[in-house]
């Protein structure tokens, strides 16, 4: 373990970004974690002050700082509302990397990131096996939601109502694809992302159906790796770099106009974090920037490029929409998913606080489940109060969280990806 002066030195390098915070405290109004706890260490200003304290060697407890630093969803709401324009996400991710460099990666994370994520083949194999055996450990709770909860009181699972691994992940049904452009004259690369691949393959199928309907050619190379956000948010830049390398390798041979994803998190990771946080092969930087330019969320592609428009309400179900943080805060995509819902002929009902975080935040959900549940509970209440029959969103991670929350409240509502609604309409359902 490096000594604390060295740690301070590393944090000093963040100084230029840290001084931008004028300590106005306006982030208290938007941070979902602070809204629950009311503690200054849970809000951006407090966290930045702690990092500053380490940098200036005023603090002697890096472990304490690290613990507070991790009580954050990385939802980016504070950054998009900060009057001073502080690059909060940059700072937090770099700080986590410094901390991980200092403390080392936990054995569990090491096993997951370095053992599994870095090796997509093994990852697929393990989750395939997992899906065979999980029935032994779970029981169905809510058929409507398709959620299950733990049969035994497994420590990580707690009382979550989670979606199980699919028995047939997308990579089994469609190992790869390379189809020519149809009537649209366009071709897109499809980056699937792990949650869609392994838990919601039907979302991936919906995307493929929609692209086919619109005559869009699809390039879907096999062996796609995770986008790297789980590793990066745990400060494991080494794994992150490897994952970017793996993905760049997969996509480099295809010719395509755009790269689309159905996962808000993946889109923002590829667009914002690959260019900014990748520290691997410098020669790859140019290609990463080109790919970043081509990357967009599926709704954005449908509305901005294919120009689909709202349709008459066709007696379809009423739908409300939750803005995933990574679409709203990082990329400013809020109108297009709503347009897609309307293009599906659904009766759209806006919920209160549609743009606040659902409380998932990747590993935050695991490490701070109680807090995550409180934040998500409020989201579920807003969803239910909207009076809609279906909760739609654009991020599979949010779908997991919202499903868990609605299920626990016995809401008897479905949570769907917006693209599923649109695909259902095209399929004449």
């Amino acid at each position, binding site marked *: 373990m490096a000594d604390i002066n060295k740690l301070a030195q590393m944090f000093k390098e963040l100084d230029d970004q840290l001084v*931008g915070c*004028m300590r106005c*405290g*306006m982030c208290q109004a938007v941070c979902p974690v602070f809204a629950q706890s*009311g*503690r*200054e*260490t849970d809000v951006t200003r407090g966290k930045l002050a*702690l990092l500053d304290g380490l940098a200036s060697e005023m603090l002697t407890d890096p472990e*304490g700082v690290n613990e507070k630093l991790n009580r954050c969803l990385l939802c980016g709401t504070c950054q998009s509302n900060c009057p001073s324009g502080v690059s909060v996400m940059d700072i937090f991710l770099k700080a986590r990397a410094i901390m991980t460099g200092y403390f080392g990666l936990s054995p569990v994370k090491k096993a997951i990131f370095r053992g599994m994520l870095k090796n997509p083949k093994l990852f697929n194999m393990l989750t395939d096996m997992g899906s065979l055996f999980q029935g032994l450990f779970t029981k169905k709770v809510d058929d409507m939601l398709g959620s299950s909860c733990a049969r035994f009181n497994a420590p990580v699972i707690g009382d979550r109502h989670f979606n199980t691994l699919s028995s047939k992940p997308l990579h089994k049904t469609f190992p790869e694809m390379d189809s020519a452009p149809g009537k649209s004259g366009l071709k897109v690369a499809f980056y699937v992302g792990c949650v869609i691949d392994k838990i919601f393959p039907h979302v991936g199928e919906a995307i493929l159906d929609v692209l086919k309907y619109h005559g869009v050619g699809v390039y879907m190379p096999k062996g796609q790796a995770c986008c790297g956000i789980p590793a990066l948010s745990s400060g494991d830049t080494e794994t992150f770099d490897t994952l970017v390398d793996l993905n760049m390798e997969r996509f480099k041979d295809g010719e395509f106009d755009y790269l689309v994803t159905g996962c808000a998190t993946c889109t923002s990771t590829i667009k914002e974090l690959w260019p900014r946080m990748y520290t691997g092969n410098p020669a790859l930087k140019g290609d990463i920037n080109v790919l970043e330019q081509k990357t967009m969320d599926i709704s954005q592609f449908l509305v901005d490029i294919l120009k689909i428009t709202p349709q008459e309400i066709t007696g379809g179900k009423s739908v409300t929409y939750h803005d995933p943080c990574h679409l709203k805060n990082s990329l400013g995509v809020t109108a297009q998913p709503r347009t897609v819902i309307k293009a599906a002929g659904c009766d759209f009902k806006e919920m209160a606080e549609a743009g606040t975080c659902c409380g998932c935040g990747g590993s935050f959900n695991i490490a701070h489940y109680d807090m995550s549940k409180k934040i998500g509970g409020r989201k579920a209440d807003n969803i239910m109060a909207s009076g809609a029959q279906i909760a739609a969103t654009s991020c599979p991670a949010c779908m997991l969280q919202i499903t868990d929350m609605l299920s626990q409240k016995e809401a008897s509502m479905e949570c769907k990806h917006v693209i599923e609604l649109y695909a259902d309409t095209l399929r004449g359902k």
Partner: protein
Amino acid sequence: MTKDAIVKEFEAIVGGENVMTSETDRHAYSYDAAVLDSVMPALVVRPETSEALGAATKLCNDNGLPLTVRGAGTNLSGGTIPHPGGVVVLTNGLNRILEINEEDMYAVVEPGVVTAQFAAEVAKRGLFYPPDPGSQTVSTLGGNVAENAGGLRGLKYGVTKDYVMGMEFWDVNGQLVKTGSRTVKCVTGYNLAGLMVASEGTLSVFDKITLKLIPPAQAAKSMMAIFPSMKAASETVAAIIANKIVPATLEMMDNFTIRTVENFRGAGLPVEAAALLLIEVDGHPAQVEDEAAMVEKICKANGATELKVAKDAAERDAVWQARRDALPALAKLKPTCVLEDATVPRSKIPAMIEALEDISKKLDLTIGTFGHAGDGNLHPTILTDKRDKQEWERVEKGIDMIFEKALAMGGTLSGEHGIGLAKSKYLEQETTRATLEYAHRMKSVLDPKGILNPGKIIGFRK
């Protein structure tokens, strides 16, 4: 008592999870929004009931522990920077709106209620709570009272003190003092509530506060007037008031701020304009029509080159967005942003603007000025980088000069941000030696051990 024993006692009062002793927790309560050095408290406690708030106050006094109450910590004068070895008492666990009385138009709140949330609840009942500090989405009503916070509507609707009808507060012995009432008129005893307004946590710990509510205006009209000089703009301000029109809001921006805001938002502000006035009149629809027409005439007569009247809610919003953008836009230019609030009589605004320009030239400092022209409350905003030692020295000098000028014009040190630590050294300059001594004598009786937010406003007795 040993520190451990004291921690145990606090835990018994507020519960274990509400006593924070770790280095990281304490560090997070060592600062506020003022550009001042931070000071770590020994302990942070977060009462969730009135009784616990009183008991915590008494425990501090019994042990001679300096006590700093903290709402949202957004004050700009160091009012919540703790005293070394002291205790920070958080009020954000006391955040219940206890009553909104529509018939008698008042509300009773706990001190930690967030201003904007309160205003929204009040609006839902068809009533209006006007004080709207720029920090209202996070600031607390307790903090507003303790700072006598004002906002954009100060000119016509007044500031927080105009809405405090009564309150309950804890004295250092943990006894509950009640003052004021729920009636519009009340002369029972000393006006202690009045004394507590702007006391910045140095005289008592506020508990429940009774606030006056009013009916909202039926109509409003906003406009933006463009001027070829700050002089013309400020003369217009004086002329509007002289014509017995009191707009709800009357805000000014200098050229530097206009350009910065335009770069930031690109909303089509006139970047060549030397000054902008943003004006809103409100009231009965007929009166609003009348006053808007008058204001328009006065602006033109005083040299406005252009005048845009908002036609609908969206345009009205755009006018106020420009004003709301002023601080964020300026704040992005440089790492450190010193927001001052020197206030002068309205007629002195042109002179004050000139003085600010002088200071900026003389000391080679970047200063953007905007503010509440209608009430003479200007916000010269100095943009700098605190790490640049030489420039920072000039900034400190600049601040001294700003106050000197404001005082020389019959103005005041602070229109709304409070004195705290930042400006206590100037207090005697604005008042008199006797004033300061009177305040110290009063404080020494109410707070004999001097535990309540030591050093703030009146400094330490010399």
